[in-house]
């Protein structure tokens, strides 16, 4: 049973996940250096898969590195770059090294990245990927060929409660839950009303009884960053009042933080929410400040978490 699975099943406190900034080079030391900025404050760390369709060190390599450095990895997999054979091989390969948490995404299109000439794959879609990986955890490849012993996998996915068709998002989340997703990291969002409706729909449909919801908040530094997301990241919209709140503030960086804190408090106040996913574009220690201000700093609950990470660092050293 993965550490993340155990924490979510226990349900004694909100679970916090974060994301490792993309790594390109510099050996394990580069991974460790980035990990130190996030791992002490979260329960599990996402190893991204060519985020925004930009090539980086692979999701498998990063997830294995995170695990070897003593933190709990969540290996993201997008459908954009690989077919079903390659994806299954990646999961099995990562599992050999102890990676257990998988997060299945459709993925941004190739046109979102810096190599728009690339062939888009999408051999599987998000819900299909969830079912295929769940099959691996049950002890068989998609072909039916048995895997003995089955890898211990904890499968999750993502959903965007903030993008059209809004009234269909609960049904889509339900499709993912019904096919094996045990947690859903939600897209970055600024519309609290949409999150409320989505979470309420998930509770009503029974989804939250078997799938943990982790809304995402994003730490930014300026109105420009918010405006960029609003304009250039498909599926994210930032309301005018949020933009104005930050741009008109005396200290926009501090106001950005306060906005994120408000969104996080609101998300955690919704019955049916199991924790938070934090994305960080500030890289100034704000993740630690945020979990502290929310009163969900992991040290307060699990001092062993720190030790585990410290121990991992020694191994790497």
């Amino acid at each position: 049973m993965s550490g993340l699975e155990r924490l979510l099943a226990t349900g004694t406190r909100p679970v916090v996940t974060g994301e490792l900034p993309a790594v390109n080079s510099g050996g394990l030391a580069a991974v460790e250096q980035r990990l130190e900025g996030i791992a002490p404050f979260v329960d599990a760390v996402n190893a991204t898969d060519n985020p925004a369709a930009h090539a980086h060190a692979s999701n498998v390599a990063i997830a294995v590195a995170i695990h070897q450095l003593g933190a709990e990895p969540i290996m993201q997999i997008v459908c954009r770059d690989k077919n079903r054979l390659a994806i299954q091989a990646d999961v099995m390969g990562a599992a050999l090294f102890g990676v257990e948490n998988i997060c299945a995404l459709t993925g941004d299109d190739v046109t979102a990245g810096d190599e728009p000439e690339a062939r888009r794959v999408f051999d599987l879609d998000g819900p299909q990927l969830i079912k295929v990986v769940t099959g691996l955890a049950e002890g068989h490849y998609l072909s039916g060929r048995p895997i003995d012993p089955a890898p211990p996998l904890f499968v999750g996915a993502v959903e965007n409660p903030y993008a059209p068709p809004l009234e269909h998002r609960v049904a889509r989340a339900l499709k993912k839950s019904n096919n094996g997703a045990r947690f859903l990291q939600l897209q970055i969002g600024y519309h609290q009303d949409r999150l409320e409706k989505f979470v309420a729909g998930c509770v009503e449909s029974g989804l939250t009884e078997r799938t943990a919801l982790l809304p995402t908040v994003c730490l930014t530094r300026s109105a420009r960053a918010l405006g960029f997301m609003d304009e250039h990241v498909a599926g994210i919209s930032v309301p005018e009042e949020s933009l104005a709140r930050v741009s008109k503030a005396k200290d926009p960086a501090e106001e950005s933080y306060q906005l994120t804190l408000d969104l996080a408090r609101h998300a955690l106040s919704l019955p049916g929410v199991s924790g938070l996913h934090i994305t960080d574009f500030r890289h100034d220690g704000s993740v630690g400040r945020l979990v502290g201000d929310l009163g969900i700093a992991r040290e307060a609950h699990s001092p062993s978490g720190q030790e585990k990470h410290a121990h991992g660092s020694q191994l790497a050293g």
Partner: protein
Amino acid sequence: MTDLLTRVEDAVKIPLWDCRTCGQCVLHSTGMTCPMTCPKTLRNGPCGGVREDGGCEVKPEMRCVWVKAEARSRTLPLLPRKWRDEINHLRPPVDNQLERTSSWRNLLTGRDRVTPVGWQGEATRADPVDWPRPSMGEFEGPFTTPFHPREA
């Protein structure tokens, strides 16, 4: 190369639905909107990149195929109830061997319903109510959020 049936099917479906000849037609379950016209060829619902105005992430000037499919599955006249409900079913991965073959023939022979062995079994049931918890370790669930008061 292509046989007569395929040519007749193409002549009807390409002009009407922009058919991409995948050979395993699911139009009836997606509000008569071909999911293969989605740039990501998604067969199980919209991605997270749908724009605020309902535009496609990849082609902003185009309405998201799944925004259309979802709306049409509810509002299209004459669509049987059974088909409307199928929008939320899980459609299996595309069988790439069927590309450029007649989906009508594949429907009649049942070929379009053949899926890999690993796709079948307990977890393939479409009905959420019947779906069993996957046998993953000692996962105990249900998830609770005790940091919220129960009555909230």
